[in-house]
């Protein structure tokens, strides 16, 4: 294969971000536009005072042209994230968060930080949550098994980060563990 080794095992964060940008987000448009057909579907019509759901890529595009305000999703605020951070640090399992929260949060904070209330606090909370979850997934390494690993509520970005070496080390373990059926056959003989 012509791909460099790191790209063979997983996709890049930028690609994940692209996928996440297909998700719908609410905007308050500042311009009027008729319902328009795109490859991924038809969105609109935009009637300025009314809210409208469009994909994130379209929302960011309009936002950068100052043609809309983005309504942040209900989980992107200080209270919700603070609650999740408390759960994350007090309970052993991963707390429930939207599957692509890392990507969506980053894009929205990059482009529309003026639409998010208290963006700096949200940023630092997201950072704390990320670190808390990272240390948990590191614990998961020690529980690694050759056949399965269950880490519920892990998110797209986190899965992608640990995928290359988890997959590889499970492959190694598979080879190190002696097949039990082989042993049984030997015993029967």
């Amino acid at each position, binding site marked *: 294969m012509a791909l460099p*080794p*790191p790209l063979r*095992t*997983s996709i*890049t*964060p*930028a690609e994940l*971000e692209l996928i996440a940008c297909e998700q719908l987000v609410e905007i308050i448009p500042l311009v009027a536009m008729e319902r328009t057909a795109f490859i991924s579907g038809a969105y609109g019509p935009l009637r300025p005072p009314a809210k409208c759901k469009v994909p994130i890529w379209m929302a*960011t*595009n309009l936002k*950068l042209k100052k043609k809309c305000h983005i309504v942040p999703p209900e989980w992107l605020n200080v209270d919700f994230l603070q609650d999740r951070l408390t759960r994350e640090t007090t309970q052993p399992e991963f707390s429930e968060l939207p599957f692509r929260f890392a990507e969506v949060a*980053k*894009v929205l904070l*990059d*482009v529309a930080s003026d639409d998010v209330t208290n963006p700096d606090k949200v940023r630092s909370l997201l950072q704390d949550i*990320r670190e808390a979850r990272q240390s948990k997934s*590191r614990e998961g*390494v*020690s529980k*690694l098994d050759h056949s399965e690993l269950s880490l519920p509520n892990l998110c797209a*970005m986190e899965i*992608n*980060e*640990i*995928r*290359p*070496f988890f997959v*590889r*080390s499970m*492959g*190694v*373990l598979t*080879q*190190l*563990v*002696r097949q039990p059926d082989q*042993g049984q056959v*030997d*015993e029967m003989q």
Partner: protein
Amino acid sequence: MEDDYYSVESILAENQKIQCAFKIDIADMGHLDGGNERDIKAQSKIQVPMWMAYILIYSDYAEFTIPPPFSARVRNALNAEARSVRLSSLVGQGGLWYGFGIMIMRLLSDVPAHELSDVLTKTFRSRLPEVIDQAHHFASIHGAAASASGSGGGTITSDEATMAFREGLDGTERELFVLAQDSARRTKRWYETSERTRRS
């Protein structure tokens, strides 16, 4: 590591030598030992590479002894603290300790093979978290070590321990180290770069 016909690594792992005791005389093969003898005598012990040992053992021309990297002494050390054993010095720099172990395991009969599999699995699992941890924090460990040596003689013992562990990684662990390091670096870069400039 993989038992794959096209895997260069598995070919390299087969280059490890194991000691075989021949059961029969073999004429005109004395050069294998590098000595001056013309023939191989029965009972003589000769180091042969793995790829040759297979056929000798399966044809019942020779018996083999468990090679030193998997001796009782090493096993005891691994049992005591797997992370303080230098696997790379057991099989040579960049050697494949696990790959070699798998080959030996396949040659052994049931019970010892099972024991060896346990040793390999336990060692791998107890060393893996440290490998991943160091890969993730490689930059900071390195930075700390550099500043410690820069400040003049203030060497930290834990730094030396991590350094020693890293040098003791076997080929397979090195590969995992690089994988973990790369993915951590890529994700970190994504988190830290702002896309705003690219978008506008």
